[in-house]
């Protein structure tokens, strides 16, 4: 969502804020209820005041937008505020992207991209160069975003007799769309108009969207000027080919090799590709709700913090509301003790294989774990995301024994070295981020142990991707002895190296249990060091292809 910048909507302590990045220094000051920024290059003098006019995001990350003096064109303040950590960081370092992509989002980015979804019925209205004349219906994601146009609804329902006629009969109000009354695909598309990876049908539709905003209205069966991209589906072949030609990394930066979405904020791609979706009833509101009107719903703050779920939907009940028979044979189905994390539906069928906002998030493509997905596409499977200390071979054998899944062809490393070790040392930045985050997951730590995680997380503090370093730091702080470990994940390389050395020495001298026995699969020797040959081999085989998870 987007809000007008006010003392209430902006991060705290803005007045007097001073930050520096990429050779420029920024200074904020408050005048009444308005905030302004001055910028100067290092050694120069501060320039004109620029007012902070709007702020995007509220729960996780806040990004500020400044006036430019060019009509409604906005410029990004290059620092974002990470709400949970109460810290400022360069916006580039709050996304998973290569460090050489400086100031990826800049002047006009809000007009040209962000406002497509962070407002209600935005019209970006590009003029020329860096000039826009953007307009919105409302800054927040308001009623009409999900319930369609409201004018007729409001006018006709001024009459109380009409309202009570609707209340006292089973008739639904024909003047408004209620996603709760729609079939699954249409209901899901209401959310999916934004929460999906989409593209324009053609240039005409793109221009129309730019001038007049989205033609899609909730209740419709497709996005009108746009379509939801499922990479491996047969629809829109020309448009997908065009994307492949003009933006070769488009799919790689958003999807796993089998077409499963790997970035957060685009959950409808996953929902649409789920087997549950084919039943015609399953949609986003099977588990989430946008109004707090269910009996037993918690307070607004908790609801917002817990993914806006309906009551009890953080439990197995989410799946059992349809798959009722599983509850009576839970252990036979999961092969895990009933109360263990291995018997929780989410952990196996919606593992955390999507990434964004600096953390791993559950996949919304309901699937069953298999090792082939890890070998063919590099996607961590649910078994090894919890059993971090086990190999792919171990997972494959269990899946074969329990579910008769074929055992895929495995390499020597797949049989000898824990899958998580392989991913965090030789995986691409997206895989490393998932594992760095996963090593802080309490359920995984209980199952796989904590002692052996230190060296890997400490090493990952020097990762070349800021987002990966952030997750390694977050996970390290969940381990005994490191809860108050200070670390600036956006610091220069030399400082990062010094911090990692400090962390390693702290672990070796103060924290490490000298009697700890490390499983062979973890590739940690009895002195607490990563086996040199394993480390060098896996590290040199790292997938260094630049990746930008375009959430």
């Amino acid at each position: 969502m987007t809000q007008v910048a006010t003392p209430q909507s902006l991060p705290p302590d803005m007045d007097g804020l001073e930050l520096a990045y990429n050779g420029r220094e920024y200074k904020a000051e408050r005048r009444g209820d308005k905030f302004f920024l001055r910028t100067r290059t290092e050694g120069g003098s501060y320039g004109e005041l620029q007012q902070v006019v709007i702020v995007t995001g509220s729960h996780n990350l806040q990004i500020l937008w400044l006036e430019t003096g060019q009509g409604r064109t906005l410029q990004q303040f290059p620092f974002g505020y990470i709400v949970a950590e109460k810290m400022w960081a360069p916006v580039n370092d709050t996304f998973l992207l290569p460090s050489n992509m400086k100031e990826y989002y800049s002047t006009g980015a809000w007009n040209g991209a962000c406002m497509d979804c962070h407002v209600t019925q935005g019209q970006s209205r590009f003029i020329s160069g860096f000039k826009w004349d953007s307009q919105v219906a409302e800054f927040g994601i308001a009623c009409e975003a999900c319930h369609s146009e409201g004018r007729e609804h409001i006018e006709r329902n001024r009459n109380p007799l009409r309202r009570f006629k609707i209340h006292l009969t089973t008739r639904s109000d024909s003047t408004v769309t209620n996603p709760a009354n729609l079939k699954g695909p249409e209901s899901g598309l209401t959310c999916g108009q934004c929460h999906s990876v989409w593209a324009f049908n053609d240039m005409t539709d793109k221009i129309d969207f730019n001038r007049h905003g989205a033609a899609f209205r909730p209740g419709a069966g497709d996005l009108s000027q746009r379509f939801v991209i499922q990479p491996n589906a047969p629809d829109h072949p020309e448009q997908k080919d065009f994307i492949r030609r003009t933006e070769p990394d488009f799919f790689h930066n958003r999807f796993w090799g089998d077409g499963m979405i790997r970035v957060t904020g685009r959950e409808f791609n996953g929902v649409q590709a789920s087997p549950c979706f084919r039943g015609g009833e399953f949609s986003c509101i099977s588990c989430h709700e946008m109004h707090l009107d269910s009996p037993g719903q918690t307070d607004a703050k908790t609801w917002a913090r817990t993914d806006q779920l309906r009551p009890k939907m953080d439990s197995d009940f989410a799946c059992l509301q349809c798959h009722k028979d599983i509850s009576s044979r839970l252990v036979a189905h999961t092969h895990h003790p009933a109360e263990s994390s291995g018997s929780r539906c989410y952990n196996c069928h919606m593992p955390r294989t999507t990434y964004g906002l600096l953390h791993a998030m559950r996949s919304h493509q309901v699937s069953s774990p298999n090792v082939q997905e890890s070998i063919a596409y590099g996607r961590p499977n649910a078994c090894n995301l919890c059993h971090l200390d086990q190999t792919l071979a171990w997972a494959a054998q269990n899946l074969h024994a329990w579910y008769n899944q074929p055992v895929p062809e495995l390499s020597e490393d797949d049989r000898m070295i824990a899958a998580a070790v392989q991913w965090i040392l030789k995986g691409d930045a997206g895989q490393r981020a998932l594992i760095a985050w996963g090593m802080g997951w309490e359920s995984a730590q209980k199952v796989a142990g904590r002692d052996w995680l230190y060296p890997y997380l400490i090493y990952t503090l020097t990762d070349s991707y800021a987002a990966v370093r952030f997750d390694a730091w977050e996970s390290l702080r969940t381990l005994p002895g490191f809860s108050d470990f200070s670390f600036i994940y956006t610091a220069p390389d030399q400082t990062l190296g010094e911090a990692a050395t400090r962390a390693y020495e702290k672990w070796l001298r103060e924290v490490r249990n000298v009697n700890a026995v490390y499983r062979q699969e973890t590739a940690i020797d009895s002195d607490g060091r990563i086996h040199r040959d394993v480390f060098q081999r896996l590290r040199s085989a790292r997938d260094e292809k630049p990746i930008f998870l375009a959430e």
Partner: protein
Amino acid sequence: MADRNLRFGWWSLLVFLSLGAVLEALHGFKIGWYIDVGNDTRRLMFTLAHAHGTLLALVNIVAGLSVRIVERFTLRSSVSFALIWAAILLPAGFFLGGIVIYDGDPGLGVWLVPVGAALLFYSIARIAFDLSRRK
């Protein structure tokens, strides 16, 4: 006639002050049926029932006392009747309207409110006229 309004007023005051204590308890124990975000219409209706019930109880008491204090002033039978029923129907309408709610609308019971309001309007207007015309 005036005694009837006086008696009714004090008993009514007792009832609606007790209702106030019940509403406080619903707040105190954080009862979701009353305080959840989606139940703000119910909260408004119950608050209005409590406020109108209490206020109209006091109006009945004042009307009863006015007959005793003001010389040559009597309460017509129809006014006494209307004042009592206004003090019943108005808060009852709000209260019943809050039991079952429809999104932003109260339940059917709220239709008692305009009836009570009409009775209240008649009785107050009649008292005002009668007080002005007394010799």
